[in-house]
């Protein structure tokens, strides 16, 4: 379970201070898929980076399965599987070696790494590419490798930053099925997206972010009811106040 309370983060730039995240609170429960929906530049990536401890918030609290991230970031990271916006893999290592590297950094035993890798390779349908060097992989194959790498330590909580970016339709469908499977296993899945349809099709709970703030929060039905709009897209546009940056 992920809990975020009143998160703030500002960046100093040449033109002044930018409040990337300005008071974000939400909860992502186990056994549910939570979608972080918002236009480009809304502060989704920054919020997620604070969640997986890459950045420290200026203000606010984050708890992963009840662990305060500020107090024990290492324990929190153990419970998190993270697919960041940056998802480069090592092109001179095979797919399996990429996964094993992260397994070792999580302190796993070799036998455990092998067992988990086999499970992920079959779940993500990457049997053919598992022992190939990743140089020349397609975007979809690279993303699958990065996801397997992020989940090698069998984390209870899974955070994915725009996981379907740049993927074709078939891979996107396969990835959706995989996220549903993670939910069925009782994990807490949190992913960000700027694609409305994707969030609507997948999420039990939607957190809409705009200009660094949460502007709406609830299930698809609740959002439609709250805004009085029949379609989720209209509800979304109404919630963020403009159609800017949407697909």
């Amino acid at each position, binding site marked *: 379970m992920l809990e975020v309370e009143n998160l703030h983060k500002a960046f100093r730039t040449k033109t002044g201070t930018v409040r990337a995240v300005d008071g974000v609170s939400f909860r992502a429960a186990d056994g549910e898929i939570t979608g972080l929906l918002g236009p480009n530049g809304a502060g989704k990536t920054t919020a997620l980076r604070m969640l997986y401890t890459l950045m420290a918030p200026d203000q606010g609290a984050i708890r992963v399965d009840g662990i305060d991230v500020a107090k024990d970031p290492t*324990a929190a990271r153990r419970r998190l599987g993270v697919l*960041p916006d*940056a998802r480069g*893999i090592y092109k001179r290592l095979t797919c399996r070696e990429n996964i094993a590297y992260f397994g*070792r950094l999580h302190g796993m035993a070799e036998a455990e790494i092998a067992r988990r890798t086999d499970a992920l390779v079959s779940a993500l349908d990457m049997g053919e590419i598992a022992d190939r060097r990743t140089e020349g992989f397609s975007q979809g194959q690279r993303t699958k490798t990065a996801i397997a*790498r992020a989940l090698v330590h069998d984390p209870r909580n899974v955070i994915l930053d725009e996981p379907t970016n740049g993927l074709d339709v078939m891979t996107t469908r396969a990835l959706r099925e995989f996220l549903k499977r993670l939910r069925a296993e009782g994990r807490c899945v949190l992913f960000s997206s700027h694609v409305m349809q994707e969030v609507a099709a997948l999420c039990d709970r939607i957190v809409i972010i705009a200009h660094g703030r949460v502007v709406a929060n609830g299930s698809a039905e609740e959002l439609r009811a709250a805004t009085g709009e029949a379609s989720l897209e209209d509800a979304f546009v109404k919630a963020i106040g403009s159609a800017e940056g949407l697909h």
Partner: protein
Amino acid sequence: MRAVLTVWAKELIDTFRDRRTVLTSLLMGPLLGPLLLAGMLSMMVSQQVDRAERRLELPVAGAEHAPNLVAWLKRQGVDVKDAPADVDRAIRRQELDVVLVIAPAFADDWRANRPALVEVVHDASRAQQTGVTIARVKALIAQYGAEIGSMRLVARGVHPGVSSPIAVAERDLSTPEARSGMMLSFLPYILILGAFLGAMHVAMDSTAGERERQSLEPLLATPAARAAIMSGKLAAAASFALIALALTLAAIVVTFPLMPTDKIGMKIDLGLPAALRMFAVLVPIALFGAALLTLISAYAKSYKEAQSYTSLLLLLPMIPTMVLLVNPVKTEAWMLAVPFLGQNQMIMKLVRAETIGALEWGIALGAGLALAAIVWALAARLYRREQLAISA
């Protein structure tokens, strides 16, 4: 600790699978330097031997003014030639190394017991190539003058010793190894630079490069401590530099004994024991270099920026060598603590086969390791920065 080893192993595997890097850093680099050095030294030796032993060819202008001198020169085995009409031009255009010009007044001065003039015309800026020849010519003329002078004194009933009140003799106590040190003064620079920047590729690729390839952010999201990740990368970079250095030294150990340096009274004693000691001297520099390059890569916003900083680093190890070239000083203990200067002096001591005391070893290695540790700590601090993982 396990994370350090994991990162170290991964970075080395990653690097060794990059065939081009391995070829340039581990094959061409270590072989090219020693081969170049060996080639240069062989050429110098053969030239010097050639000049010292070859029959001396000496163009003489105005030979008719001093037939006795010319005849004496021929008896000494000199191949006397006719000089061209314009002597100065021939020397300036480097057609001839040296010409002996006998003044027209030679015979008159000779008979009048006045010093008779002969000129040794040469170009001093070419001393490197012509020095040996000119020295031989001067020595011959001086010898002829001394012989004639003695005969004149004897003819007048005076003991020749009267005109030479002082006898000057030289005793050169330099060892053959020490003499070779003069020739090998550029060896420390090559070795220090190799150890210092051998880590360049791995250090920059594993931090600045990894960030640009977008894999640093996921790496830092693992529970492994940032200092551990950084240390693993640094250790991999230093290991790579040391492998390259070991290959360079191995090439030197193999190629240098093949050179005929004993012919010019030098002895290059760079066997395995000396090479191992040089390796030990350079371990702190390799660690320092890897730490400094990691620091720079973590500080720079991009791979390109890091590269432009490292081109400045090339000059750093040159400074002590340059200073020593202009102002050669005797090694003092404190110098061994100065980075680059200390390694330079230690390697020269090893080349000259001087004994090195435990204190000197302690200072040289201790100061280098302390410096590496300081830069490592700075790099660890930089690695904790939030901006590190996020590429512009």
